């Protein structure tokens, strides 16, 4: 293969690769619904917000930060939890696959009032 022909083949290959990846991203973006981001703050001794409404099948990411000390966030109905550390954002991703009312709580003992650190997730159709 001469040099000119080689450049042409390489160019065509690269163009195809770019097209495939652009198409791939497009298809992917088209196939998956966007994640809904919900910011939650944990601070002695409450979550804000403490009531969250979600839609079944809608992917969601909880971005949880601490307003003071180490806490935990546990939503057992969907098998998700995370430590919540000061100065960091903890991310929990999940897609609710059932409807109903589910409680979440702090599962890292944080002081007198820890027991009150609870909230509710309501998942609707």
């Amino acid at each position, binding site marked *: 293969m001469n040099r000119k022909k080689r450049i042409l083949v390489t160019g065509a290959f690269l163009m195809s690769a770019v097209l495939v990846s652009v198409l791939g991203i497009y298809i992917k973006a088209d196939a998956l619904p966007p994640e809904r981001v919900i910011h939650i703050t944990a601070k002695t001794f409450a979550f804000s917000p403490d009531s969250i409404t979600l839609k079944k099948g809608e992917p969601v990411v909880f971005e949880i930060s601490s307003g003071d000390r180490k806490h935990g966030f546990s939503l057992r109905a969907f098998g998700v939890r995370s430590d919540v550390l000061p100065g960091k954002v903890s991310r929990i991703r999940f897609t609710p696959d059932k409807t109903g009312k589910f409680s979440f*709580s702090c599962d*890292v*003992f944080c*002081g*007198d009032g*820890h027991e009150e650190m609870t909230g509710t997730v309501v998942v609707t159709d």
Partner: protein
Amino acid sequence: MSKFDRRGFIKLAGLGGGIVFASSLSRGLGLNALGSLPDYAKGKVENDFYFVQLSDTHWGFAGPKVNPDAEGTLKKAVQAVNNLEEQPDFIVFTGDLTHTTDDVQVRKDRMSQFKEIVGALKVPTVHFMAGEHDASLDRGDAYQEAFGKLNYTFDHKGVHFIVIDNVSDPGAIVGESQLNWLKADLKQQKTDARIVVLTHRPLFDLYPDWDWATRDGSAVIDALMPHHNVTVFYGHIHQENHHMTGHIAHHSAKSLMFPLPAPGSVPKKAPIPWDTSAPYKGLGLRSIEAELKQAKYEIKELNVTGG
């Protein structure tokens, strides 16, 4: 405890081999609490013994609607134990000796005050363990200063006691290091050894939404499982609860400060308010009899020629 109650308990405990624990919970903290002799003391058998479990005393708690006698309840419990006609071999406190506080000095003061009060117990041997209120905010620093180790073992009349710490990690985790320590200790025990585990939180998932669990408790239970005679006594949930994980019985104790509702029975966990018509209702302490099973003798007759 009536004979009927005692039979019921033994059936629940399901401990066929070697040892049976019979537990009685006092009905209140009046002068008559634990006033009658435990069954053990009535018909004492060599090597049988009993001990007393007190739990969740929450010294330092203040809430008149929940317990208007917050400063007197622990002292009454000490008196109730001292009034026992036959003193127990030892006493265990299964955690939350003090109520939590952010103030390090107040935490230390509460521990000192607690020690002073329980120092009036006649029984010389007292084994302490921590609850999350004592140890979770400083990883057990103040507790260890006042009471010693967070996890340890001791032996009494052929029974091996293992104290497991599931509170000094605020995430309710026993942790790999302690699990290895436990496994190494269990390795020294025969599979039919009589083992009692003392801890604060339930080792099984009693009701995790209320923090009534140990995150890696199943690993502890797995380690205990090869041993045939294991019983767990714990606190934390401020009420009596009896549960089996396989052949391992788990028994929680009442609190000496405030009772809590049954697991999941109300939307939000909160102390049950004081009942003026029945003071100290839901509070109590327990005696535990360790009845060592009578030795069995298998007799084989031999004739003079050895046949």
